[in-house]
């Protein structure tokens, strides 16, 4: 580790990074693993890794990229472990379907609800359920994508990263990122219909 760490204008201590980037990391995790239930665990893991490995960051952008990369990798590990430890885990399958619906609902009701699926769903669960079946929100549609596409879509549309930046962040070839994005958009179009413009 370089002892003469460049001191940049912004604070790069873990606590500062938590404050500044935890929401960002959380969203990337939710978007990638499609499940809120494990998201804050992963976020915690990401920041603990930060404390443990103490990478040297040149600037905040660098730190941000590191956090996103570690977060998305953690999700992938988790993805494996989900199938690993709960193979055939019906609830995870359900959860993958339900999670995004939960996401929106949870965030409006979570504080007061017990967190169970039906309880978090507004006041008319069945009605809402049917509605969700008919017209998915964008988040729900994204959650239906495979994990790699999800993370690329998220970084592209939410973090506004370029393909090159995504490739750098995910340590994947740009062509791969491109194809994930391409497939992801195609899939979104089939889920959401022609309602959205993806190029803007």
């Amino acid at each position, binding site marked *: 580790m370089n002892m003469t760490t460049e001191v940049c204008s912004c604070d790069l201590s873990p606590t500062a990074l938590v404050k500044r980037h935890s929401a960002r990391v959380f969203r990337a995790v939710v978007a990638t693993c499609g499940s809120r239930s494990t998201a*804050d665990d992963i976020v915690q893991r990401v920041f603990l890794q930060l404390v443990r490995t103490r990478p040297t960051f040149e600037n905040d952008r660098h730190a941000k990229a590191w956090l996103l990369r570690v977060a998305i990798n953690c999700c992938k590990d988790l993805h494996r472990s989900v199938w690993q430890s709960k193979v055939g885990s019906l609830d995870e399958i359900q959860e993958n*379907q339900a999670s995004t619906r939960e996401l929106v609902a949870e965030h409006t009701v979570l504080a007061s609800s017990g967190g169970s699926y*039906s309880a978090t769903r507004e006041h008319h669960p069945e009605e809402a359920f049917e509605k969700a079946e008919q017209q998915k929100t964008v988040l729900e549609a994204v959650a239906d994508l495979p994990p790699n596409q999800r993370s690329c879509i998220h970084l592209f549309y*939410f973090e506004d990263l370029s393909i090159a930046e995504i490739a750098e962040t995910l340590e994947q070839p740009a062509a791969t990122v491109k194809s994930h994005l391409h497939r992801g958009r195609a899939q*979104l179009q089939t889920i959401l219909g022609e309602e959205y413009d993806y190029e803007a």
Partner: protein
Amino acid sequence: MKPKNFRDTYKHEMEEIQLDDKQLASLLSAIEAEELTQGQTYSSVTTPATEERAYSPTPASAPVKKQRKRFWKDWSTAGQVVTVSSGLVGATAMLFFGVVAWSAMSTLFLPATVNSTLSEPFELGEAAQTELPLEGMVALIPADNDYTNIYTTLEQIHERDMRELERSRAEAEQRREAQLRNDSSRSFFSFFGNDSDDMATNEEPLSEDMALDSADSFAPESEMFFEDDGGSFGGASSRDNPDFSDTNIQVQGVQEGDILKTNGHYIYALSTAGLTVIEANAGNPRVLSTLAFDDAHGPSFRPGALERQGTTSPRSTRSASAAGSENIYSKMYLEGDRLIALWAITNDPMTSVHFPEMAGVDIFDVSNPASPRYLTSFSLGGNLVNSRMIGDVLYLVCTTYIDDARRERGRPETFIPFVNHDDETILAPASHIRITPETREMRAKYTHIVGIDTSRGGRLVSQAALLGGSDDLYMSTDNLFLLSEGQIRKPARGADIVGNATTVTRVGLDAGYIDIDNSRRLPGIVNNQFSLDEKDDVLRIITTFTRWEDFSQSRSQGSTGRGSTGWDSDDLITEEWEPTSSDFTDTTVWTLDARLEIIGMIDGFGIDEDVYSARFMGDIVYFVTFREIDPVYAVDLSDPANPRFLSELKIPGFSEYLHPWTDGMLFGFGRDACEITGIRGGLKLSMFNISNPRDVTREHYLILDDYRDSDASSNHRAILVSPERNLIAFPADDSYMIYSFHEQRGFELVERLPLISEGDTPARGLFIDDMFYVFELGDSPNVEVFILPDFQTWDFLWL
């Protein structure tokens, strides 16, 4: 209609998702605690901290130095430590430092055999201070008949946790104040301090538990299969003994649960549809019956009210399980005419509602597969870690947490693990409980082991418990080895040496009777169950040790007496060694006797690399480490006291699973990777020639550039390897791939079957006689049938 902008809509919806204040505060306090554990904060990189480190009460450098030298000498002269010479591993300065560092580390750990005996009272405070019981042999203390010492220990742990929290908070406070004085730009620390103080009493388990979580991602549930290659054997209650493939397991005779089981006539599949019973019917499968979990347990299933009956209702609706019934069948075993289904009710860590976690097993009589009959069930509190089955006996291993709020001295049921069966609660007997000093655990928990004889209607044979958690296990036919990850910390000249460690606990098994024997702590962690093997009462185990400490710290703190580089320099590690983000790692093969005393070891493998796969084949172990290239190592363990390095093969990429093929061939399933950067490429199939273990070569390989992800990378039950049928079948991305292997032409694609649902659909393949069945068990469960050997499509069925 003008299309809406996707980006804006997505952003808008995404911004709704936020960490709430409570989560943020909890995160901050976890970070702070971790910083304390690490003994420093970021700021100390530039501003050397002056405070005492959290876990280094006696940084006595001189005695440590003396002891270290002596120990290395003892070990090497005893001929028990064999280090691969640098020439073999591709000598670099890194290796040299690595080996030296390792020698320093091992001397710190190895001598630390516990002096305390079982009769001595368990003194937690002392253990936490000296930490000696954590290394070497771990004293397991038997429980008193009335569980008094367990209760006392639980109280001590609880108090310790509280004290620890108190202390962390105080120290964090002090540090913040110091920092405030030093650096006004970090003034927000104090602001957050208040938040985290509020949260501290609810603190989540810290690093230890994180490590445990990640351990889940290792294949925890199976056994091995070496000599029996394909995993294919006829057996089961069949009249005409069809030849069929069974779940890919590690140890012959030790069954592993999976989501698909067959006896050659009937196939049992777990999917969102529930537990489906399918008649194989010579390639024209028919669904006979479906068991939904809710049908068996009722929607109002509660602990203690296990009322259910076997039913054959139509498939459950998804909403039923989405509506809060989180208990689901996760795995099955098939033994004779009994189907054993495992389930678990777990807490969602995101919700504030906590109900007692439960795991259990339902036993069905499937002698009439059209109408499975529910026989009985056993349930226990906690999370299922893993399970195995030997003959009729099912072994469950659970982690059980103790609710400190509910704990009452006179009521053992509030703090002792139990099994529920037939409306009866059976506590683990005191004679079968051991206490291990788990001084770093933030919450008290047990590893609960249950042996159930599934024949004749089901019977609890015995149960045992270890106060202390477990992450993974390996089971041979005679013993269960529990693995628990932790860390080692040794104060050394101002900078703590920190590294990961594994506690191995040997548990004797005999037809369901369970006896906890011994525990030992080894430096390093275990990749997965394939890194262990028992042969002739010798446990062979591969660990990868990672040191986390940044030793440049010790220099900046003005430590003195730096000598030249060499064995007897204290400062080798700091000299010219730039820690990378994962610091230093080293892999060791250990041999341990039945008392878990170390017989021999050999280290120096994969400096700065992690173990990706291992396979023990008789006296020889082959294992793969990886960072940028993939050495395949062969080590001869025929003399356990003197493991010998045989060979090393370096090729790009790595194998995550190794499986014996025929005639001195070893099949490897893994990923390609760039030689220079280590960036991973497509999936890769490799065939190694191991007919001469001193000269392992790669005969053939095939890179699947378009496929990157496979369930089989981390779950050996997802891959089918059958040399007899010349089949290698596995899911890859959104396809199911079937390959064959020819000595001249290498790997050849036989069939690529696109899976219907994209994403992580679990898929399994199996053959029965001349029919090959590919099951897709996600949310669109189906089976497609092919005729071997040409893979003509034959039939298709929705489940």
